[in-house]
């Protein structure tokens, strides 16, 4: 997994790329969580994520819940077909913010 972060006003966009599994979830959290803790609105761009497993889904849930707790928001952008399928399998399409 690789990533790139861009900033525009109070919105931080994290562009994730590659496959997100148990082996890279700590790295993903290290990128995303400090942005949420800084009360940024976070956009996670998932266009280039070809694979995500339950560990990756856990990062999405944890990010979403942490943002709610701190009064900010995480939005999933340009979700790839394969990631959307896993989100739907987990029945999270009504829980997470999908755009």
């Amino acid at each position, binding site marked *: 997994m690789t990533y790139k972060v861009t900033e525009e006003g109070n919105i931080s966009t994290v562009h994730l790329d590659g*496959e997100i*599994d*148990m*082996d890279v979830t700590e790295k993903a959290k290290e990128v995303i969580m400090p942005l949420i803790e800084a009360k940024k609105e976070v956009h996670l761009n998932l266009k280039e994520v070809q*694979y995500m*497993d*339950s*560990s990756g*889904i*856990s*990062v999405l*849930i*944890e990010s979403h*819940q942490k943002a709610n707790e701190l009064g900010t928001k995480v939005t999933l952008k340009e979700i790839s077909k*394969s990631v959307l*399928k*896993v989100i739907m*399998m*987990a*029945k*999270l399409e009504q*829980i997470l913010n999908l755009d």
Partner: protein
Amino acid sequence: MNLALSNISEKKDFIVNSSSLKDVRSFSREVFEKLQLEQDLKDELVLAIAEAAQNIVKHAYKDIADTSDKMEITISLKNNELEIGFFDKGRAVDQNNVRHRKIDDVKPGGLGTFFIQQIMDAVVFKEGEKPWINHLVLTKKI
């Protein structure tokens, strides 16, 4: 259903480590490529296999860091029934403790087993024959 599926039997072993999961996926994709399965089905099966392998790393080898142990994965197709076997030498799995979280109790974790059950027709834990401790069998008619 693909009526032209040929029988196949493949196996490979992997070091029990989270860094092996990408190799598990590659192996699975290669096998399913040979079977010429539809892309959506291939993706689902690869996810189920990777989740089961992840469970071995996370649970059977919980608190056991840097092991040199290997797990073996077998994929076979006979008469359009796919059977995927997982063998490991970790802590014996108590089948009663294998359950996914309630799906409407949204929190991180506990989804891997749910995905496996959603994708596969049957999930059976067996006692492994020596040298194995655990033997998990996933099956699906395709």
